């Protein structure tokens, strides 16, 4: 996977490039908007991470220009501007996700992964989701594990669906809050953890192989061990 990082803060860019490289990505770095736009049009990247405020050409303009050129590469916007409005502006300009500085590295990695996968997902989403012996029928609203029916509340169902669609990916608490509840703020408490532990009770308690895993310092992941 080849990523382009457009970030003018050399120090931060250095850390990010190292972290992304360690996570297995190949990363190009551009230090300003013009350079970033040049890189993005020259090469076909799998994803772009763009800072919003850049010298010469700001991040939103870079994205707008790319989108006008028909470039569909997923873009994650990084910004020190974090209000609801700023977020909406970023997404309207053509960004696919928006992350406010400062952020946890795990949050960035989880979102990049989600973004890159989203780029590959078939247009019609799967209606029957399967993981090991767990089966979810999205249309019939049923979940079974090893043939046994598992009763979930509507929210728990949505939560599990969100996780199953990202099997093998780290999903952070804020991603869950945004994706499952459509709430874009930091709840400041462990509300999500409580919901996850309930879901876990329902899905994993009576079985030997747990499917829902906690990723320390980052969030959650469903996968077969």
């Amino acid at each position, binding site marked *: 996977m080849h990523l382009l990082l457009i970030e003018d803060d050399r120090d931060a860019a250095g850390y990010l490039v190292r972290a992304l490289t360690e996570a297995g990505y190949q990363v190009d770095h551009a230090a300003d908007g013009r350079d970033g736009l040049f890189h993005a049009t020259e090469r076909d990247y799998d994803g772009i991470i763009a800072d919003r405020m850049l010298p010469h050409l700001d991040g939103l303009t870079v994205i707008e220009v790319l989108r006008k050129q028909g470039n569909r590469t997923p873009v994650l916007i990084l910004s020190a501007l*974090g*209000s*609801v*409005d700023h977020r*909406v502006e970023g997404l309207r300009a053509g960004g696919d996700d928006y992350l*406010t500085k*400062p952020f946890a590295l795990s949050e960035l990695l989880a979102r990049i992964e989600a973004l890159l996968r989203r780029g590959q997902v078939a247009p019609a989403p799967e209606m029957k989701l399967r993981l090991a012996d767990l089966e979810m029928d999205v249309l019939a609203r049923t979940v079974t594990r090893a043939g046994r029916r598992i009763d979930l509340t509507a*929210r728990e169902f949505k939560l599990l669906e969100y996780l199953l669609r990202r099997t093998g990916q780290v999903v952070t608490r804020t991603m869950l809050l945004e994706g499952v*509840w459509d*709430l*874009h*703020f*930091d*709840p*400041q*408490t*462990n*509300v999500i953890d*409580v*919901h996850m532990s*309930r879901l876990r009770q329902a899905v994993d308690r009576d079985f030997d192989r747990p499917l829902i895993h906690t990723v320390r310092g980052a969030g959650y992941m469903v996968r077969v061990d």
Partner: protein
Amino acid sequence: MRTSALRLSVVYAAIFAAALLALVFVIYLLTARFIDAEVDTAIERDAAGFVEAYSRGGVRTLADELNLRVANWGRSNAVYLLSDEQGFVLAGNLPAWPTMRVEDGAWVDFEILVQESGFETERSIRAMVLEPAPDLRLLVGTDLSERRALGRRFAVAAGVGSLLVTMLALWIGYRQSQRILARVADVSRSCAEILGGNLSRRLPVAGVEDEFDTLAVEVNALLARLARTTEILRASLHSAAHDLRSPMHRMRLRMERALADPVAGASRDTVEVTLQDLDHMQRVLTALLQIAEAESGAVGARPEAVAMDVLLAELVELYQPQAEQQDIALQVSAGSGHQVMGHRQLLAQALANLIDNALKFTPAGGRVQISSGVESGRLVLTVADTGPGIPAGDRVRAVEPFVRLSDTPSREGAGLGLSLAAAVARLHGGSLRLQDNQPGLLVTLDLPLV
């Protein structure tokens, strides 16, 4: 400014004076013409009398009549002269035929010199010349001097009157412009003072409810709005400094310790605690920015209709598992179909803060009761907990922007949460009130419905 106002009043006074003079002149002309006509009519009537006297008794009767009139002053300022065709004077009060200045048919105008109390004065005469018989010439006229004098007096009176009125107009205009200038100067002085840094200064309102007062009231409202925004900015800076200093202080101490003793200081624990402090700082900063944004009304997103009952149900559902985990009964009784024009994310954040706050301070076994309903066209939403509550003296302050409850460290963080909820309420045209739940805290959020 001063000179332009004065110039304006002078110009108006001049226009006024010119109009006044034109009026007086027209009146004078009309009056003069009327008097001239009167004079001519009197002369014609007089002359007709003489012609009748001649036809009655010839020259003798005519001369007698003439002399009688002269003696008795039959008509004031009358001038008579009867002569033969050679100009020999037969009767009348003129010594000889005068030199005519104007001759217009029978009508003539001339001047004569008269001895009057030792002075020789010139008099203007208007007269009619008749020939009652071929050998007779009769002049019947009127001395116009008195009329002329009247005209002069009239002109003088009109002139003086006009001058007085013009001066009065000038004076009133000047005074009036001075009065307006004084009020403008008041405003300008107040503005200078405000610019000078006295932000609490307001424009003077005279209380006469004129345009100046209306303007002053509007400008004052604008100033109040600006002052409030400035105050919020100041308070947010102050509050940010206060809230960020403690974790920064801790981080600094830890980092210095790590430098001095890399083995013990830079342990994994130290790094984790530092990250927690950073997270805390970030949360504080985010909350402060949100409050500042909501308080200043600088939320750009267009408001949309938000179904508050749905939103409330979602948030209660979000917090329900946590309440159960804390052994707190989270109960809701809400009406349905309540829509508020606003910003969903901000309203959600406000509700989340209220619920979160209630759960945070309610002991195990306690209860958090949420209810919503409509009261006189407004959505009234209450969150009642059975926690320690907030002392009465602190309640009003607690919902003001950026006010921290100084004596209750256990409520740390609650201040910002409630402040943000209050700011969001105000942004939506509503309010947030804190009351005693006996025991606990009763928070009432009211919002205007769509």
